[in-house]
């Protein structure tokens, strides 16, 4: 059952994650997030008045610009832009600032696998930094399927290229950790978290897909706690600086 991974990581072990806010001085909100070697920087500008054509003026509009590390902007970048925009539509409260546009620029600093989850975490942290109203945070994870059916989490670039199939999942960050200790047990069992976004590549059986979802869901709870701690610790230090 043991899967050999580079660096001796276990199948369910994630790479060390780091997230820091307020990295750029001119942007209204900014953040940089890294999963192992993969690093993404996100900047938020807005809300600015007016929406683009064909967009609903009763809601806020979100515009994403994805910049790859090298090369020209092509179809993969457009696909990432669309996925990120629709994922954020789920977690943002768009009716608070109608008829406005918020631009989010995502710059890939280094791609070593698991790029979309890293970008989603960076974008959420940048939106928190900008003070944009959000329903909840989003937590994302990548799973890979090996030839003999094992599921490994958070693959590096080399692992992604060797694998048979690859699933990327985004879940809403659970609200249970905000509730007081006593009430968590009852509500945690009744609500199973739905999936915000799911992306697969490569052929797999339907059962493999559902196993990956289960593994991803289990791994997401500690990950969302880590993310929240990273953002809280900075907020506390900002307050102490202000006072």
């Amino acid at each position, binding site marked *: 059952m043991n899967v050999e991974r580079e660096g001796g990581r276990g199948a369910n072990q994630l790479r060390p994650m780091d997230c820091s806010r307020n990295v750029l001085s001119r942007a209204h909100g900014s953040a940089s997030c890294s999963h192992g070697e993969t690093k993404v920087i996100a900047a938020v500008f807005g809300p600015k008045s007016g929406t683009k054509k064909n967009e609903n003026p009763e809601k806020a509009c979100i515009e994403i610009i994805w910049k790859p590390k090298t090369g020209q902007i*092509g*179809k993969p970048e*457009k696909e990432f832009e*669309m*996925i990120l925009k*629709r994922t954020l539509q*789920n977690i943002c409260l768009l009716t608070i600032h109608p008829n406005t546009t918020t631009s989010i620029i995502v710059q890939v600093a280094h791609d070593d696998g698991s790029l979309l989850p890293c970008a989603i975490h960076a974008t959420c942290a940048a939106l928190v930094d900008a003070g944009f109203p959000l329903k909840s945070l989003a937590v994302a994870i990548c799973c890979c399927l090996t030839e003999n059916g094992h599921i490994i989490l958070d693959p590096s670039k080399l692992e992604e290229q060797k694998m048979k199939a690859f699933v990327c999942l985004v879940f809403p960050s659970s609200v249970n950790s905000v509730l007081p200790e006593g009430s968590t047990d009852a509500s945690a069992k009744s609500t199973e978290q*739905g999936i915000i976004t799911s992306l697969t590549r490569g*052929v797999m059986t339907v059962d493999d897909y559902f196993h990956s979802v289960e593994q991803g869901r289990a791994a997401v709870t500690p990950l969302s706690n880590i993310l929240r701690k990273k953002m809280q610790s900075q907020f506390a230090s900002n307050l102490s600086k202000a006072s």
Partner: protein
Amino acid sequence: MAAASGTNDLSSDMELDAFRRLFPLRFHERHLLESIRPDGRPLGRARDTTLSLGAVASANGSALAKIGCTTMLAAIKLEVMIPIAEAPDEGCIAIDFHMPPICSPLIRPGRPAEVAPVISKQLSDTILSSGMIDLKELCLVSGKAAWMAYLDIYCLDADGALFDAALLSAVAAFSHLQIPVVSLNDNGRIVLMSEENGENGGSMKKKEPVNKEKIKLKLNSQPFSLTCVLHKNYILADPTFEEESIMETYLTITLDTNFQLVSLNKPGGPGLASTSAIQDCIILARQRVKELQQILNEAISDMEVD
């Protein structure tokens, strides 16, 4: 006043259309309560699908697919190229999806649609990763010549479920593809062998065709897809453009003929997808794969009769 015109179904046509435009979500939800959709379909049924092969006579392979009003035209052109060093006996496929302004009033000339590059990339990923085509079949002379297949898909009418129709037309075009017979020239170049070579002028030597046996590609498991819209507890299969724009959460499932999952794509959207909703969608997708396979086989046999 709005509630009155909503409950009064015997109102004149003008009021119904006005209600549909002013309160689209309520209009659709009233239909969903009766488990039906505005065009009369039950929730799990896809629109009528037709397929015609050989729509473009000058292309090596082509197909026109219609799912309801959504129309896609796919055409394949073959060109000889030198294969790359890492894969000397494999050909190449380049897939491109175009949305010309004819397909929708929202697309203006000079301003390309936002969904077009996304669908193009998804089609490319799906077709190449599904293993439908073995690239080694596109090889002519190992290391020196191989076929490059340019697949272009044009959307002629965009009425929802664009990816499904595009994938269907691509698979049909590959089933219709006829690789022309070629032979190796004296200069070492590949030339088309035309039918007039039968009369031996004496000055032309009879050339050996390089690929006499390979005229049609052998397709392994073909991928077919189904897009479903998730709205509260309802799952609507094969949405129209109106349904997609009102209930914005959709999920596209691609299965191949062995019922393996080629891709499951839920690109965000305001609603969440629970595991039970995904399982229901997969059941609908399985039925759809059987229907589409039958439609494709009928279209192929119609062509062969001609």
